[in-house]
């Protein structure tokens, strides 16, 4: 089942070592905190220590009297300065009547969450700014706070004092309500469950940060940001600050991970840009790790009410879902859209005829939520995969059997399947991945060992869990986004240039933060143009070099941006072929292109390599009549559909039933992301994704107290797993080409995360089934496991 693609000269399927690595392995590259500007001011934020409070007064005199302090500015002062023309943007008003109170970078009269900015301090150095922030005295009057999603749903307090509801929107997806009702009426088996998707902190290893460098005479501003979305930032900064878009240049230097956590348009960006522009001085900000939990957005934050109906054989006929989704205090860039991204996946990889979905978004007095790796899709995958295991228990069959009975097209290969959600799955072939994962994990052997331990009454019990996921990648067809009220498109831009000396420049609209775009894009050129990938340079992440783009999120870079590059490369080859034909005095249709060389069919001795034509196109001494000089082509690719990667994961846990201690002892993933450009990179993406999902299952949660204070904002308290907690991961893959794009690629950035939380929790519940446990809340900590075993609240 392993991919058997023939690698040629760095083309598709080659495990090429990454071109990015040398700079990163020697400290030569520059992250945001490595960049300095002469005369720069350090910006620090005074942040609310209350979840909800009126701001009665701010005394900044002590701070202003400190050496090295440039100024202290409150929300009221900043407002009077007129630095911005519009509130911070939400690009995804999911319904026409969505409630969206204005969200300005600095709170003026009322703080809405712990971490909300109430004043800004500017100093000449890093240490002084931390000192000065502590000297600003703010008088607050606490207000009742909606300190959890359930409190907000129950209306215990209003998150926004000027609103009489916490509900921001109601969004339904119910294509056939009669069908769902009939399926439940006819059901032999039903399952009802409620799952909590706890809040998570994205925690890329590099904290966020930015540096705005103005040019007072010219009016331009260069904005360096540790961002996933330089192009979106440029548009949004212009729209909110009123600075002309063509005076703004955004540069994302090396970015130390994102996982969604760096795709927002945050207050810090607006403050740095507008203050730098106003003062005529560079302004920088570096997030402190413990500040991040309140300064940038968090992920997940949903309560899922799920019901499923099945016939006597366990064939699932309908799924009904209601989500309550925690928006946090404000709508950030795509906050309300995140749960919608999952809505289409609640029928998973199964041929389930009916889906009824609705989502209510609620404001709370907590840090805003937004995208975190998978964004809506891990939540959906978790729900349906937990439900399938529960249904298997009801029917009295194994988890693998119920899946086999429900796969689309019986698990055999299919193309263009119309799902109940109204989306069309591009392609799938689920059974091979399923069979391979069970074989690699030796599920049969594990079950024997599990039975032996149960019979022997051993303290350490085994649990085996599986998950067969599908995800939506390649965000996104612009028309589909328009239909969902998203405020932008989903295309991607690419330019390919063959330079006079035969080297290639690729301009990429999608921007890396660890994915290896420079390597993968070079391999696309190798595949399409027969050019050594080391002759390719990829220009990206700077809006002056790459003016058009929609950046990186939603596993879209390859399936949209990579496809654009391949199409632009094809156009360069097509034009070069005309030049070759002209040189050979042959008809273009008689020219063959093999391994980078053009030759006349039938006379292979006469040939010219495409790299040799770069100079001819540049010099333009003898081009075909009417042809423009130079070999440079661009493409803006708007995909006709999403891509739907899938796979089967198996997790094996060992639980100490005396202490509740848990070890993840084995993990198998068999993933299908379509055609693979670089399997080395694919595997790395899956490894990291699996660990992030497993971490949601076992370790991670942003824990809030009853007053809305986060109790674990630092890496001391928030349990990002170390190497100790994770097992060796066994991977394999199958290859089912996508029908959405000409490369047949799907996307893999979020796959691991989408598969792993459900696999791990299914394994935990399997281990605990002799104790009558059918569900456990995430993270499944030793305490929760012990409680579940001993009959307490899980």
């Amino acid at each position, binding site marked *: 089942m392993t991919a058997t693609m023939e690698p040629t000269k760095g083309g598709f399927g080659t495990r090429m070592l990454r071109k990015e690595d040398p700079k990163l*392995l020697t400290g030569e590259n520059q992250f945001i905190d490595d960049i300095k500007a002469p005369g720069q001011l350090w910006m620090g934020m005074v942040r609310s220590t209350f979840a909800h409070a009126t701001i009665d007064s701010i005394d900044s005199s002590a701070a202003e009297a400190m050496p090295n302090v440039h100024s202290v500015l409150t929300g009221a002062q900043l407002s009077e300065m007129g630095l911005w023309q519009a509130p911070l943007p939400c690009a995804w008003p999911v319904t026409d009547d969505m409630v969206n109170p204005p969200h300005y970078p600095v709170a003026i009269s009322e703080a809405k969450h712990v971490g909300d900015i109430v004043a800004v301090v500017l100093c000449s150095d890093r240490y002084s700014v931390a000192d000065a922030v502590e000297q600003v005295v703010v008088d607050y009057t606490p207000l009742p706070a909606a300190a959890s999603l359930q409190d907000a749903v129950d209306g215990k307090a209003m998150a926004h004092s000027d609103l009489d509801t916490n509900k921001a929107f109601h969004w339904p997806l119910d294509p056939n309500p009669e069908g769902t009702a009939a399926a439940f009426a006819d059901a032999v088996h039903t399952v009802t469950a409620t799952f909590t998707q706890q809040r998570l902190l994205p925690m890329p290893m590099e904290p966020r940060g930015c540096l705005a460098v103005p040019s007072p005479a010219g009016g331009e501003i260069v904005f360096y940001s540790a961002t996933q979305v330089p192009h979106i930032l440029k548009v949004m900064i212009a729209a909110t600050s009123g600075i002309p878009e063509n005076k703004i240049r955004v540069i994302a230097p090396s970015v130390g991970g994102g996982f969604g956590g760096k795709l927002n348009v945050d207050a810090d960006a607006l403050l740095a840009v507008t203050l730098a522009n106003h003062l005529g001085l560079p302004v920088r900000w570096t997030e402190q790790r413990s500040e991040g939990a309140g300064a940038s957005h968090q992920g997940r934050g949903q309560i899922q009410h799920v019901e499923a109906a099945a016939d006597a054989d366990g064939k699932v006929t309908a799924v009904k879902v209601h989500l309550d989704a925690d928006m946090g205090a404000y709508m950030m860039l795509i906050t309300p859209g995140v749960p919608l991204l999952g809505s289409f996946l609640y029928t998973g990889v199964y041929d389930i005829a009916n889906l009824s979905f609705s989502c209510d978004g609620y404001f709370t007095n907590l840090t805003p939520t937004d995208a975190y790796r998978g964004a809506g899709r891990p939540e959906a995958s978790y729900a349906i995969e937990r439900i399938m295991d529960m249904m298997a228990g009801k029917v009295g069959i194994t988890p693998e059997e119920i899946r086999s009975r429900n796969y689309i097209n019986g698990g055999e290969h299919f193309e263009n399947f119309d799902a109940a959600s109204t989306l069309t799955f591009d392609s799938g072939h689920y059974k091979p991945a399923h069979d391979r994962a069970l074989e690699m994990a030796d599920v049969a052997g594990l079950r024997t060992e599990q039975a032996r331990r149960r019979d022997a009454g051993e303290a350490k019990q085994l649990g085996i869990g599986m998950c067969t996921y599908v995800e939506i990648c390649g965000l996104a067809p612009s028309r589909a986004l328009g239909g969902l009220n998203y405020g932008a498109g989903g295309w991607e831009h690419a330019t390919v240039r063959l330079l006079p000396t035969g080297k290639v420049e690729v301009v990429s609209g999608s921007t890396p933060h660890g994915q290896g775009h420079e390597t993968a894009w070079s391999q696309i050129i190798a595949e399409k143009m027969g050019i050594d990938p080391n002759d390719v340079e990829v220009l990206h992440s700077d809006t002056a070099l790459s003016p058009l783009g929609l950046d990186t999120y939603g596993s879209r870079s390859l399936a949209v941006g990579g496809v654009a590059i391949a199409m632009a490369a094809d156009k360069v080859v097509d034009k070069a072929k005309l030049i070759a034909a002209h040189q050979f005095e042959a008809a273009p249709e008689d020219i063959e292109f093999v391994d980078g060389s053009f030759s006349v069919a039938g006379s292979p001795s006469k040939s010219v390599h495409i790299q040799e034509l770069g100079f001819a196109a540049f010099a333009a001494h003898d081009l075909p009549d009417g042809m423009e000089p130079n070999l440079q082509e661009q493409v803006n690719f708007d995909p006709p559909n999403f891509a739907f990667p899938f796979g089967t994961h198996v997790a094996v846990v060992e639980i100490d039933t005396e202490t509740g201690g848990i070890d993840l002892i084995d993990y198998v993933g068999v993933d299908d992301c379509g055609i693979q450009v670089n399997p080395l990179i694919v595997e790395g993406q899956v490894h990291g994704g699996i660990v992030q999902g497993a971490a949601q299952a076992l370790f991670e949660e942003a824990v809030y107290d009853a007053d809305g204070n986060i109790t674990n904002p630092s890496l001391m308290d928030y349990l*990002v797993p170390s190497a100790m907690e994770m097992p060796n991961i066994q991977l394999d893959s199958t290859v089912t080409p996508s029908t959405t794009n000409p490369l047949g690629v799907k996307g893999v950035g979020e796959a691991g995360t989408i598969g792993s939380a459900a696999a791990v929790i299914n394994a935990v519940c399997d281990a605990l089934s002799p104790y009558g446990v059918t569900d456990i809340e995430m993270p499944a900590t030793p305490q929760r496991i012990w409680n579940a075993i001993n009959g307490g609240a899980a």
Partner: protein
Amino acid sequence: MQVSMTVNGASHSHDIEPRTLLVHHIREGVGLTGTNIGCDTSSCGACTVHVGGQSVKSCTMLAVQAEGEAITTIEGLAGQAQADGSATGDQNWHPMQEAFQQCHALQCGYCTPGMVMAATSFLNENPNPTEDQIREGLEGNLCRCTGYHNIVKAVQSAAGDAA
């Protein structure tokens, strides 16, 4: 106050605030920005350097505590390997740098300098570790991209090459 130390073989003497952390001194005083800062609780290990040959999280130490010490950062690791004859591969790097690239043990690269410095120090102390010992030995260094799988492989590979 005045502080003097050797960083990657070169002498550096600066007048600094006494409270300056070693990591800030290396980055902003000495001007070597390869050493990264990932947290504020000495949890992540991104700032790991060698002080007198031992791995140290450089945010746990004041610069003045490194008075007279010999520091090695990621920028100096290849040179050190070249000097002691252990450099390897086309790039003439330290074997751990080479192993990290060969095994795809880095993605965004932010934890990488600290991870490489911690791993080299670990192998100096335990040249033939088991997989569990490697995982335990790198417990103080967090990575969010790789799931550690390929980092463990890289350390095994570097250990094998050195053996």
